[in-house]
């Protein structure tokens, strides 16, 4: 559905020009170089990476808000940088920071809903109820967290086939994070793709069914949660047991050692520990994809 083909992208500023190049800060380093990836329908992707690896940039490139210097990003065969209305009505991005106009929710819906042919007021109301928000309100008087919930509710109600979210749980209180998971899970369909870029892995790991980890120029991990959990187990072992042959990675924790080990087929699958997996994949002495 989304094809990212050999894209190269860098931020070019005036300081990147030769006659203005600074000796210290270098602007213009490639964020992505010959980067490729495919996103399929019906999946909730978790886009993870260290700070500055280009997660938000990748979301903006996918949505056509940024144009790569080389390569193409296509949604159903159409380049996203063209920002065609037929494509935009099937795509919604929830950025980390956004503005809501100082109008009532009804006015906001009347303004925006006509642009999305699959918009559903029932879905919006259901999401607002799940977020424990009133169905009628003045958007200008809401707190940041409340605005985020409203915006995400509208994004889900728009019924777009592609939903991009950048740090969606930032600013949400603890109960709201579980509400967020419930709301997104309820709105998933076979034809919808959701990409969530986040550092708050514990907020979303139960929601994800596909993990993408990127590091500037390459994809470090691109695997489904089912595949990962069928091949690896995430356990707590006592210090001596962490040196077993099947252990790929271990780090100390309060209960003992948190380990990633090759899963024995006879043993039951264990829940994914996304933070442990992230640390393993991003170790400086191991940049290879897990087998």
């Amino acid at each position, binding site marked *: 559905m989304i094809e990212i083909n050999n894209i190269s992208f860098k*931020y*070019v*500023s*005036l300081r990147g020009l030769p006659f203005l190049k600074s000796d210290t800060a270098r602007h213009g380093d490639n964020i992505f170089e010959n980067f490729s990836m495919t996103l399929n329908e019906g999946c909730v992707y978790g886009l993870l990476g260290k700070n500055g690896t280009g997660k938000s940039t990748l979301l*903006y490139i996918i*949505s*056509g*808000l*940024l*144009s790569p210097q080389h390569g193409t990003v296509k949604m159903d065969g159409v380049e996203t940088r063209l*920002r*065609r*209305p037929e494509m*935009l*009505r099937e*795509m*919604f*991005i929830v*950025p980390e*920071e*956004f*503005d809501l*106009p*100082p*109008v009532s929710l009804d*006015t906001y819906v009347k*303004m*925006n809903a*006509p*642009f*999305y042919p699959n918009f559903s007021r029932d879905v919006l109301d259901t999401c607002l109820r799940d977020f424990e928000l009133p169905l009628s309100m003045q958007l200008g008087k809401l707190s940041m967290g409340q605005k985020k919930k409203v915006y995400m509710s509208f994004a889900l109600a728009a019924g777009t086939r592609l939903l991009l979210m950048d740090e969606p749980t930032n600013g949400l209180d603890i109960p709201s994070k579980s509400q967020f998971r419930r709301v997104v899970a309820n709105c998933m369909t076979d034809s919808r793709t959701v990409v969530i870029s986040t550092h708050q892995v514990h907020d979303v790991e139960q929601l994800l069914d596909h993990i993408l980890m990127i590091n500037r120029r390459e994809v470090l991990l691109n695997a489904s949660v089912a595949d990962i959990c069928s091949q690896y187990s995430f356990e707590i072992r006592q210090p001596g047991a962490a040196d077993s042959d099947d252990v790929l990675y271990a780090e100390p924790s309060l209960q003992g050692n948190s380990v990633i080990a090759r899963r024995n087929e006879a043993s039951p699958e264990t829940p994914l520990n996304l933070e442990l997996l992230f640390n393993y994949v991003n170790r400086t002495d191991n940049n290879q994809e897990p087998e």
Partner: protein
Amino acid sequence: MENLNTKRLWLTAKWDATTNWKSSVRIMAGMTFGLLILYTVHFLNMLNVMYSPDYITSQYRSMAIETNISFIVFMVAGASLIFANMRTKQQRIAFCMLPASNAEKYIVRWLWATVGFALIFICASVAADLIRIVIWWIAGYGYTGSVVATGTGILYESVCNVLANCGTAHTGDSIHALKQKENYAIMTYCISFCVMAHSFYILGGTLFRRNAWLLTTLTAIVLAIILLHTGNFPFIDGTLFGRRCSIEQKIMALYILSGIFAMLSVVFYIVSWKLFRRMQVINDRTINL
């Protein structure tokens, strides 16, 4: 070719008006305040010559003419605010991701920078006039006139004169016919210059992300200085390239210059359109390249 859907165009216009109504109100308030300052200066002049009807009438005519000139300046300079709705990253994301074609978004913003600005100015001038009348009434001078009514009257007289001249066309090479042709040529020259200036500020508003009005004006000043230094700009001192010319030569030159201004307007609009189409969310902070 960008697709254009009239229903979506209308939806986009409604969206834009609802999202950005506060900035329109702020501009109108600023314009109203500016006009009130202008009227207050005249009011202070009128205090010195109390109740002289002829002087009051002349002051009203001055205020009306200055208001009309302010309108032209406001319209031209205000064109640089064409993409003021995309100043912040959040605004850019919202506008770029709106499911409308680039053509529809551009047309909506162009309409705001032209028709919208004209409406803002009209509302501001009416508001300033009403406030002025109330203040003068409270100050004890009563109702002495309306700037808007006087300005409208002056515009009406001018249009009637033009239409009257059109209605009685003078043919041949008589002095009246040449004078009429010269008037048409001057009118065409002035209109094409205003359109060219407006399109220049539209381009500036598209190119410069911040302080668009200031940077466009500075650019215009620099270009004007360069033009003045490179040669004798036609008619700046009433001559054509340093030589006195006949009326026929003047008419020809005015029409040629009008054509050049028209072509420049087209070029500025095309460049502005192309810049808008490739606008991205995170750009260089000063220019949208």
